[in-house]
C-alpha cells in the first residue's frame, strides 16, 4: 500500500506518497521532477543514478524509498546552478569532459564524495572511486582531468 514518506532533498523537506519499496530513483525523477539522476540498469551496476545520501554516494536505483526516508539526499540539481556552478561542474565544462553526458551526473556526484574525503586525489584514487561507474563514450581521460581541475579550484578557494 502507498504510504507517506518524508524526504530531505537538496536541503528541502518534501513528502511523497508511494510504496515503500519504490526505488528512490523513480521518486526523484517522477515525483520530485529531478531528472539529473538517470536510469541505466536498475541493479546498481552502472552508476548513472548516483546521488549522495548522508554524505555517501549511493545508487538510487536500488535504494528503496523507505531506506531514504529521513536521510539527507543531495542530487546533481542541489550541487550547483548555472549561476553558481560547483567547482566540479565548472571543471567538467572547462575540460569539455562530456560526450553524450548520460553517465556524467552520476560521475560528478561520486567525484564530489571523493573530493570531500581526498583533497588531491591521484589518477589511481579517481579510478578507484569511479570503478563502478560506466562511461560508454570513452570520456575517461577528460573526466580524470576535470576532477583534478576541480580539486585544484576547491583547494585554491579554501
Amino acid at each position, binding site marked *: 500500500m502507498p504510504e507517506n514518506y518524508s524526504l530531505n532533498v537538496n536541503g528541502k523537506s518534501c513528502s511523497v506518497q*508511494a*510504496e515503500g519499496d*519504490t*526505488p528512490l530513483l*523513480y521518486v526523484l*525523477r*517522477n515525483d520530485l*521532477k*529531478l*531528472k*539529473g*539522476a*538517470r*536510469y*541505466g*540498469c*536498475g*541493479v546498481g*551496476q*552502472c552508476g*548513472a543514478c548516483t546521488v549522495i545520501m548522508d554524505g555517501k554516494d549511493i545508487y538510487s536505483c536500488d535504494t528503496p524509498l523507505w531506506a531514504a526516508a529521513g536521510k539527507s539526499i543531495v*542530487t*546533481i*540539481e542541489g*550541487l*550547483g*546552478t*548555472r549561476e553558481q*556552478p560547483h567547482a566540479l*561542474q565548472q571543471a*567538467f*565544462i572547462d575540460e*569539455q569532459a*562530456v*560526450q*553524450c*553526458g*548520460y*553517465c*556524467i*551526473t552520476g560521475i*560528478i556526484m561520486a567525484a564530489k564524495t571523493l573530493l570531500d574525503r581526498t583533497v588531491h586525489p591521484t589518477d*589511481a584514487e*579517481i*579510478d*578507484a572511486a*569511479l*570503478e563502478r*561507474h*560506466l*562511461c*560508454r*563514450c*570513452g*570520456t*575517461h*581521460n*577528460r*573526466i*580524470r582531468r576535470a576532477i583534478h581541475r576541480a580539486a585544484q579550484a576547491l583547494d585554491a578557494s579554501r
Partner: protein
Amino acid sequence: MSATAEKPALPGSLNTNRSLDRWLRFEADATLGVRVGKVELGQGILTALAQIAADELDLRLDQVRIVTASTEASPNEGMTSGSRSVEESGEALRYACAEVRALALEAAAHRLGVSIEKLQLAEGVFHAGGKQASYWDLAAEIDLAREASGRVSPKQASDLALVGRSAARIDLPAKVFGEPSYVQDIDLPGMVHGRVVRPVNYAATLSSVDAEAVRALPGVIAVVRDGNFLGVVAEREEQAIRAQAALAKGCRWDAPRGLPGEAKIYDYLLGCPVETAVISDKRDADAKSRADVTLQATYRKPYIAHASIGPSCAVARYDGDRFEIWSHSQGIFPLRGDMVKCLRVPAERIVVHHTDGSGCYGHNGADDVALDAALLARAASPRPVKVQWMREEEFGWEPFGPAMVMKLSASLDRSGAVVDWNHDVWSNPHSNRSGRGAGSTLIAAPHLAAPVPVSPPVDMPLPAGASHRNAIPLYDFPSEHVARHLITDTPLRISALRALGGFANVFAIESMMDELAASCGADPVAFRLRHLKDPRACAVIERAAQMAGWKAGEKGDGTRGRGIGFCKYKNLGSYCAVIAEVVLEQGLRVVRAWAAVDVGRVVNPDGVVNQIEGGIVQATSWTLKEAVRFDTDFVTSRQWADYPILTFGEAPHVQVSLIDRPEEPSKGAGEGAQGPTGGAIANALFNAIGVRVRELPLTRERIATAIG
C-alpha cells in the same frame, strides 16, 4: 537543350532539400534559427554545425540556435550515420549561409543606400557611414523561400574565424547541471508509463497469457495484446515495471530454439550459403612469382553490443487522429516511414521529434521503442506514454554489430616487399535500419496480429561499403584479391555499429601487416610507410610514431610492448594512426595510446579530439573485453555483469594530435580510430610477448591458450 533540364547538383544535403528557408530563418529573438536533419548523438555535431553557420554569416556562436529536428519542420537528411554529418549537413549549411549572406548584402546596400563594397558586417549587423541594419531588420527583404543556386562560394579557409577553433559544446551545460536533456527526461502533463513484454526469444509465439490478473494490479491502466506484442501501461513507473513482471509470468510461449550458440558461431557462419563478390582483383603474375614467404591467418570478431548507458526510450501521444512521437532515433524521417506501415496511418498523421538520448554508436533500440510507445499510446489515448526499456531488454533485443571472419594470406619477396595480398571476409549485412523495403525492421512489426513483413537487412555498397568497409587495403600492393562473402542468414539481430565492418577488416589487415613485418625482420612503422603512396597516410603514421617516441625495431620486454595500427576510414574519410602500449598483468591492459588524425579541414578541434579519444577507449573495450553471449535459445548477456566493458582503472591514457588541412574537405571523426586501435593492441601484445592472438576479444584465456 531541353527546357526541363535536370536541376544542377547542390552541395551536401542541399541537393535534396533545396529551399533556403528549409535551413535558415532569422528569428524574432534576433537569433538565426538553423534547421538541420542531422541529430545530436553525443558526438557534438550540432556545435560544429553552428560554428559553420555562424562563420559564413559573420555571427557570434550564441546568435545561432540549432532547432531540434522534427519531421514537421526540418530538412530530411536521412540518417545521422557514417560520420557524414559535417560532409552532408555542413556542406549544405556552408553554401546556404554563403548565399543568404550575399542576399543580405544586396538588401543592406539597398536599404542603406551604399554600394556593397562599402558595407562592413560584424555580429549580424551591416555598417556603412554611420548607418546600420541587421539581418533581422532586413529579414522581410531577404527572400529565403527560394531555391539555393549553389553559386555563391563559401569563405576561403583563411577568412574563417570560428571554424578551425575549438568551441565549447552548446548542449553541455544542461547535461552537467542535470537539467532535463534526454528523451528519458521528458515529462508531459498526464503522462503515464509503459513497458513491453517481449517474446522469450526471436522465434517465440504467444500461446496464452493471463492478462486479467495484471489488469487488477495497482495503477494499471491498460494491458495491450496485439498478436505476439504485449505491453502494459500504468500510472506510475514502478507500477508499470511490476505489471510487466506479472504479465511476463502469466505468459506461455511456444519458443523453438533457433540459435547456433556462441561456441559454434564461426563454424555456423562459415557453413551458411553466401553471396560472393570480388571487390578488388589486381593481378601481377610477375610480382607473384617473386613470392618468397607466404603467411596465412584467420581473424575473428564476435558480435558486439552498442551497450549505451541509457537503455532506449520513447514518448508517444495519440489524440485519436494523430501520433506525436519523441525519439532518439538517428533518422526521424525513415522511422516515420516504418511507423506508417506498422500503425497503418498516413505520414501526415505522424510527427516524430528528435530528442537527445544516451550515447548512440549506431543503430540501437531507439526506433524499436518508438513503435512500442506508439502502440501503447493508442491504448492510453489521449494520455502520453513513456516507454523505457529495462537494461535486460536493451541487451537482449538491440541489434548487434555482426560477427565476422577474415581469412588473409600475403606473400613477401626477398626484399621484404609485399608482392601478393588476399583478403576474404565473411559477414552478415551491416544495416537493418528502418525506412526501406516493403516491410519494416522494427522489433514489434512482425509480432502484431496483422504482422508487417520484416525487411531483410542490407549491406551498403562500396566505395563506403559495410561488411567490406576497409577490406581493400590502402597499402599499395602489385597483386591483390579481396572478396566479400555475404551471409544473409542472421541468427542474431544485427545492424550498424560504429565503423561497421571497418573495425574487423582493419584489425585483420593491420595484424597481417605486422605479421609480415615480423617475418622479414622489418620495423612495423617503416614496413607500413614502405607500402604507402598516399602522403596523408604517411603523415599520420609518422606523426604518431613521433608522438610515441617510436624506436625502429623496438621490442617488448616480455610483459610490456607497443604496436601500431592505421586506416583511412572507408578508404575515403579520415586518416588515423594509433600506437598502443600494453602490459600483460592478470589480463591484457592498454596503458597508453597515441593517435594522429587528419580529418581535412577541422571544424572544432576539441570536438575531433574528444571523438578520437572516445573512439580509442571504446575500441579498446571491444578489443579486450567484449562479446555478446548467447546459447541455442537466446542472448544470455542481459546485464553489465554478463557484458563487461572497460572501467576507469582499465581506460588507457590517450594523446591525440590533429593534422589540420584547411584546404581539404572536412571528414567525420567518429569512426576513424576504431580499426587502428584494434590492430595496434593486437600488435602491441605480439610485441610484448611474441605471441599472436587472432580472435577478439583478447582475453586472458585466449592469450594463455596462444602462449600454450
